[in-house]
């Protein structure tokens, strides 16, 4: 008996989460993103920096609106700065780590071979109360790959990259936890959007982009937006979910729908369009307020070429930039549906209105 298969990008997401790709070495993740995009369009390209760009054409002759949906695929990573005495590795960061979250962490060292490493910690038997009251800075941490120094020197160079090791875990309420939910959940949002978009007639060309090097300063976004010059560029990036000790306006809820950003970085008509779509489709959403350039790809989009109307949506995750980032796949699906509805609402007239104030 044949069973209709429900297309779901959860497995694609999990393979991206368990894959490895920090700023500047996103190739493995780019490969997964590219094959997933190819289920929606044969037109998939890569630009000079390594951004993956998939074009899904809209309907109709003549000039069509161009809407860019962009999610960065890089994860925060470390880079080896020294192979120290005994073969222990010293590191610095590509992207912002809280060094306190690295102690005792398992990592993958991308040397000439992939090596499993552990960030060392001094056992409580040997630490003084004074030592326990200090949090070690990143420069004091070391990675142990459990092999003799001469072999480490053959396999690892200064400059070798290091990423977190974490198997993805399922929690209650369809929540998933692991590393790199920032921002591969947003690549999954684009895939869910493309899936939802198949049930619409849309005149806009959709430029689905997985960008590189966001974590070191939205670099991929800058060249991707320049090269594509879309009419509207929407960044999809994660935002902060609530936990004790966080400000109320930086505490969105997991499972309560995507966060839609409002503020000077966001074109007011793009925001209103997203809000109207959510209301119309009865998709729950949360209002995210920002007061300056956001820490996302939208920061670059807004001032690319002569300016691009920018938007920002994303799901809320807890424990951002740790190896136990936690979010909900339901939010990813809702965010994808919201974007599909918004894209379908765009026509050439609405694009022309973007410059009318």
């Amino acid at each position, binding site marked *: 008996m044949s069973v209709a298969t429900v297309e779901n990008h959860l497995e694609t997401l999990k393979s991206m989460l368990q894959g490895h790709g920090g700023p500047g070495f996103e190739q493995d993740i780019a490969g997964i993103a590219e094959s997933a995009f190819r289920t929606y369009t044969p037109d998939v390209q890569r630009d000079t920096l390594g951004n993956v760009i998939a074009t899904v054409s809209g309907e109709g002759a003549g000039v069509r609106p161009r809407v860019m949906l962009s999610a960065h695929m890089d994860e925060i990573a470390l880079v080896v700065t020294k192979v120290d005495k005994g073969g222990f590795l010293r590191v610095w960061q590509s992207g*912002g780590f809280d060094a306190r979250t690295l102690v005792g962490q398992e990592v993958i060292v991308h040397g000439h071979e992939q090596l499993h490493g*552990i960030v060392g910690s001094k056992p409580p038997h040997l630490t003084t109360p004074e030592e*326990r009251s200090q949090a070690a800075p990143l420069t004091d941490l070391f990675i142990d790959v459990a092999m003799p120094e001469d072999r480490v020197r053959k396999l690892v160079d200064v400059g070798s990259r290091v990423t977190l090791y974490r198997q993805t875990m399922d929690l*209650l309420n369809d929540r998933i936890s692991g590393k790199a939910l920032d921002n591969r959940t947003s690549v999954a949002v684009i895939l869910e959007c493309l899936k939802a978009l198949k049930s619409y007639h849309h005149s806009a060309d959709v430029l689905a982009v997985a960008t590189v090097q966001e974590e070191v300063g939205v670099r991929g976004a800058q060249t991707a937006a320049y090269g594509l010059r879309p009419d509207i560029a929407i960044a999809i990036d994660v935002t902060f979910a609530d936990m004790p*000790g966080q400000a109320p306006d930086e505490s969105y809820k997991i499972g309560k729908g995507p966060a839609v950003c409002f503020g000077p970085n966001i074109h007011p008509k793009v925001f209103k369009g997203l809000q109207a779509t959510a209301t119309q489709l009865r998709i729950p959403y949360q209002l995210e307020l920002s007061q300056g350039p956001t820490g996302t790809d939208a920061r670059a989009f807004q001032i690319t070429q002569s300016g691009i109307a920018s938007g920002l949506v994303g799901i809320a995750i807890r*424990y951002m930039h*740790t190896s136990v980032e936690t979010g909900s796949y339901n939010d990813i699906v809702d965010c994808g549906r919201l974007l599909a509805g918004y894209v379908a609402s765009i026509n050439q007239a609405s694009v022309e209105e973007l410059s009318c104030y």
Partner: protein
Amino acid sequence: MLLKQLTEAMGPSGFEDEVRNLLREQLSDKVDHMYTDVLGNLFAEKHSDKTGPRVMLDAHMDEVGMMIVHAEDNGLLRFRPLGGIDPRVLVSKPVRIGSEKRYGVIGSKPIHLQTMEERKKPLRMDQLYIDIGAQSKDEALAHIQLGDVAVFATEYAEIGERAAKAKSFDDRVGCSIVAEAMERQWQIPVTGVFTVQEEIGLRGATAAAYRINPDIAIAVEGTVCFDVVDAPSHGQSTVLGKGPALTVQDGQTLADARFLEFLIATAEKHNIPWQLRRVKGGSNDFGAIHKVREGIVGGAISVPVRYIHAPAQIISLDDYQASLQLVCAAITEIQEGRWNA
């Protein structure tokens, strides 16, 4: 593989059931008699009909872990440690909770929202929560009971060169070595004792040694190893890959010099590498055993464990094999009458 199964099993102090069941299954047809006592210690007896000194091999089954003590209104769980855990190693780690081994994660505030001052201070145990994905207290308590225990979610794997990583090598290496030694045939009575509650004060071994009242006791332990970059020689305790570590003095024991010399002579005779454990802190079950009844002679043989009591620990597989060899060589020497107290 027994060591993989043992390290991935859940067994914080007082909750050693899964480890005990694994060991019982492993040894049931390889020893003469197995039983448990009122504390939950597991005894595996062999050759009790033979004459000669009665040897007790000890390894503790428990590991450091956590107990869930409260559910917050928002569904996050509060916990307290079972045994000695530095809260600094808990941040950003997954755990498995209760008999269902449900996943939970210990997260922390995103770096983006922290002040520079916050980043310099370690998070205290009372600032940490376990997140199982529950949205409310009621939902959390539908899946978790207060009093459920949790352990690190680390998987066993061989890494690097002749090394392995896992949680709870302290003291599943000892359990595995004692189990392997008990599978062999001996000419004297030997009892393998797998104890409970070592991490909260050598509790199980105290009662177990009283019951067995052996002529000689050897505790097999995973011990502190910090032979890492920038650690001064006197602060390393042991060196990975240099063989089993023998105790001179620790927090609970002044080694019996005669038995220490016997172990060293045995290692030398059988070409087994050995080293001395070079810190005073820490202890093992022998610290309790030697004070039981009128006193019991013996000592400890320890496998060096880097990052002991942390989620991901490292041992050398060569150290594991050498420690097993030394345990077996010591029994051989004893049964051949070369130990004369």
